[in-house]
């Protein structure tokens, strides 16, 4: 589903403080694979995710989605395949807009935003129905600005927003980093459920080794912009949580 070939990305190129964030990474993520990426700060995980999403473009190398070369596509063009959940709940939702407006935009992620009113009664009911799946009681608050909700609620809604329109790839950039343990667990469970039910290809970046252990069917360890370890489903099953901790020792 995602093909990455010999990818390079550096920041502050040619200056004294040049950082080679991604150093020649090649990686294939198969359809319906749930890939977990771990690595210390500055290992290039987030840069890799940004490169896949298209919010930054690489210097060298090629990125394919669904066998199509998207290397030079910007993020707003790659949204045709990709939905994202960000580390910061504020990045994934528009605070001043109502829950309903946010969901409307998510529902037309892959489509042009037309000069016609798309929010009608049937759409409202559809949103209410989807939101009630979360069991947070938010379905009665869809006219409220999404900024009035807690971080956990916003992340849960962002997750749900990703499947409002056709979605092939789900990118999760430390989605629980800003949340308390209970909300974190709920977000991860919801994500896992959505990925399975909607047969999504997913990439999760996390610092939480417990999540890395519990979720996903492939795990990668990154360091200095390169892939150090790559374990497939069976190898990952054989791993113990202690093994994961030892990777960082």
């Amino acid at each position, binding site marked *: 589903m995602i093909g990455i070939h010999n990818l390079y990305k550096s920041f502050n190129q040619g200056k004294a403080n040049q950082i080679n964030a991604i150093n020649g990474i090649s990686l294939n993520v198969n359809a319906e694979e749930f890939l977990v990426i771990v690595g210390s700060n500055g290992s290039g995980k987030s840069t890799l995710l940004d490169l896949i999403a298209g919010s930054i473009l690489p210097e060298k190398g090629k990125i394919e989605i669904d066998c199509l070369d998207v290397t030079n596509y910007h993020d707003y063009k790659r949204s045709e395949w990709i939905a994202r959940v960000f580390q910061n709940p504020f990045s994934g939702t528009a605070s001043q807009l109502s829950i309903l407006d946010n969901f*409307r935009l998510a529902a037309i992620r892959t489509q042009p935003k037309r000069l016609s009113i798309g929010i009608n009664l049937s759409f409202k009911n559809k949103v209410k129905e989807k939101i009630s799946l979360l069991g947070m009681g938010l379905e009665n608050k869809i006219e409220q600005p999404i900024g009035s909700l807690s971080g956990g609620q916003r992340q849960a809604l962002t997750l749900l927003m990703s499947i409002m329109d056709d979605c092939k790839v789900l990118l999760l950039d430390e989605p629980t980093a800003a949340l308390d343990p209970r909300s974190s667990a709920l977000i991860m469970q919801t994500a896992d459920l959505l990925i399975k039910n909607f047969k999504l290809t997913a990439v999760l970046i996390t610092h939480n080794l417990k999540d890395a252990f519990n979720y996903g069917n492939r795990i990668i360890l990154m360091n200095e912009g390169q892939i150090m370890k790559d374990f497939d489903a069976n190898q990952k099953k054989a791993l113990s949580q202690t093994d994961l901790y030892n990777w960082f020792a």
Partner: protein
Amino acid sequence: MDFYLTAILQGFCFSGIALGIFISMKIFNIPDITTDGSYTLGAVFTAIVLMHHISTFIALPLVIIVGALSGALTGFIHTKLKINALLAGILVMYSLYSVNLTLMGRSNLPLINVPGIFNVLNLSNNANLNSFFILFTFVVLIALIIGFLLKTDFGIAMRATGDSETMIRSLGVNTDRMKIIGLALANSLTALSGYLVSQYQGFTDINMGIGIVIVGLGSVIIAETFINFFNITSVWLSLGLVLLGAVIFQLVLAITLDLGVDANLLKLVTAVFVLVVIIIPRLKFNSLTKF
């Protein structure tokens, strides 16, 4: 009384600027001061068209187009050339001064004995009432158009662009393009004010736009005070308050003049008034949190 009616009519004339600033400042979060130039540009095009004895109804779409172009230019400089929005606006506004002066050929064009919109349309025998009806129709029409626009899928995407750029890009919107369209829209509304004012006051002057951005800012800030105080989320109500803000702003100026304040001090008074409107809600908030 006529004095205050004139103030209200002026407020109506400035509704375009008010909505334009609302769009650029509140919706897109961009401090755009192309306004001073695009407002005069609208008035200049109106004057030139009318002086050639061409219908005011041809001037109208023309003014909207040139206003949009000037805003799009600011948007282009800001997004594509990566120049700070404020500077981009200043550059365009500054160069528009020369453009306007060149187009006019001199610094003032009187519009006497030309078929302006207030002469062509006769809705009442009373000149003031006639102006009132015409301007009121304009205000209602642009409010309806902008209100509808903001309710559409495109409009929601516009509102999200100023709110969370990362989010809206990940949902498939080219934010650069959206900002250019937004600034074009804002400045076409501003130019529309130039169109109305030049015909209402009967002349176009090269200096009529200097500092006019504060009229829009003042209107939006008055509206914002209400919006925050009553916790308003409705798009329609917000638009209504912005338009009301434009009228209140002119009324306050009229009252100041009526109180005998020297007209030379008007700009100073205006600035102080805007400052006070911004500060009042904060004072109240602070004193509330103290207890």
